[in-house]
């Protein structure tokens, strides 16, 4: 699903955010990406979502070489990926329903289909009763769940989450992780950047550790070499 081969990212000005990163994630796997702040976790996710492009090496997503995706195809490329942000990136002038419906509206789904899918996504994150409220009235955990619902509403094969539990207490964090685990169990590939080591260690998933832009540890590499 995701394959990095000798991928490096140097930002203008000479800062090396990632150096020679190699790993492979098969479909349906859930993995954590960890490391100190500035280790390159966000950059790695950005390379997958084509928010940044590699300087050297290659990144394949769903069999597609990201370097070969032209600028005008990027929106269609991103529709295959659900992205969850630490700061939720919700639109506060729209209801929960409208926020979650946005990817479907963008993709041009018919009206009935939108209603059905939004309710299904909200059901998965246990927010079915909150369709009509505005995100500002929700708690941090609820807002994050709205963000997750929006990321999964058009059933992407790949979920990326950048510090999804960054602002949440441990109980809420575990709740969020349980939701991610559920998705990976139905075949969604999930990559979560997090520095919440206590939480990560409590879960059995593969852990990729970055240090100064280099991949220094990978707990699941040997067992997952099926294409």
């Amino acid at each position, binding site marked *: 699903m995701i394959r990095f081969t000798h991928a490096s990212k140097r930002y203008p000005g000479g800062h090396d955010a990632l150096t020679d990163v190699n790993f492979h994630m098969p479909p349906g796997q859930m993995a954590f990406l960890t490391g100190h702040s500035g280790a390159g976790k966000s950059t790695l996710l950005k390379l997958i979502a084509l*928010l940044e492009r590699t300087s050297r090496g290659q990144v394949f997503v769903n069999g597609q070489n990201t370097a070969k995706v032209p600028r005008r195809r990027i*929106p269609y490329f991103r529709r295959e990926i659900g992205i969850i942000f630490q700061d939720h990136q919700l639109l506060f002038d729209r209801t929960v329903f409208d926020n979650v419906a946005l990817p479907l509206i963008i993709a041009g789904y018919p009206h009935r289909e939108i209603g059905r899918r939004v309710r299904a996504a909200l059901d998965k994150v246990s927010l079915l009763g909150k369709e009509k409220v505005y995100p500002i009235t929700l708690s941090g955990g609820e807002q994050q769940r709205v963000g997750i619902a929006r990321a999964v509403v058009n059933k992407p094969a790949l979920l990326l989450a950048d510090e999804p539990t960054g602002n949440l207490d441990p109980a809420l964090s575990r709740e969020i992780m349980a939701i991610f685990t559920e998705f990976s169990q139905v075949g969604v590939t999930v990559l979560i950047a997090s520095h919440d080591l206590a939480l990560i260690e409590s879960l059995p998933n593969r852990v990729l550790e970055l240090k100064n832009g280099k991949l220094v540890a990978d707990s699941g590499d040997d067992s997952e070499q099926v294409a």
Partner: protein
Amino acid sequence: MAKSARQSGDNALATGLHVWLLRHLQVFFYSLGQLSRHPFATLMTAAVIGIALALPAGLHVVLKNAQQVSGGWDGAAKISLFLKKTVDDRQARALQAQIRKLPEVGQVRYISRDHALEEFQRLSGFGDALDALEDNPLPSVLVIQPGLAASQPAQTRQLLEKLRNYPEVDIANLDMQWVKRLYAIMDIVRRGVLVLAVLLAMAVLLVVGNTIRLAIQNRRDEIVVMKLIGGTDAFIRRPFLYTGFWYGLFGGLIAFVLVSLSFSVLSGPIERLAGLYQQQFVLSGLDFDSALLLFAASILLGLGGSWLAVGRHLRDIEPA
């Protein structure tokens, strides 16, 4: 099998078109709804556009009216043919009949030598002095009023050349200097209005562009989110373009109302003035074609202005 495949293809196309139309319609009204949330700000922008467009539109109508008035004066250009003294009364009348048959000619009036002398004696006050002359010094004259086919200055001049070539004619005179001057002045005014219109159109373009630029900045977060979850440039651009469309439409509407109001205020006094000159004149306002042009121009300027802003600023906003 192949048929059903084609049919489903057609259906997909029809559904695609349907969806496309529906989305445009949604954005069409969504952008209107966004504008109606801030009615005062919207009205201010539309009023600026309206006033900027009302000026050239109003001048255009003034010019049209002036043309209509001066059209009545075209007939005042008369050609005087002074005939040779050897031409007698009978020959002159034959020439009059001949000229009258020309398609460019409206009316021909014949003033015989005797009649001319009589008139001159009566009007000049030199009656007694002229009596002292043995011979009538005045030539007979044909006064020609060009017809509709020769109402333009160039055509009138052609007619003059034609008439000058008759052997009976001694001198051919065209009294149209002032008409030419009037036309020249109107040409200048018309061009001035055009220059003004272009300048004000640019102003409208910039006003709309700036307003849309602010709207883009205000909704920066929204644009970032849209781009993050796979919104195409066209999708993100669309509401702003429609907003520009609405500004253009409202601006055109305001310009139309302003021009119509101004002319209804002016029409009374102008008709009174025309009455004092014993002229029948009805002030015409914006006709259908001009109004259509006004609306088309304002909508195009609205769209163009937003296109400029969107093209420049949407690309700058990228999620990071």
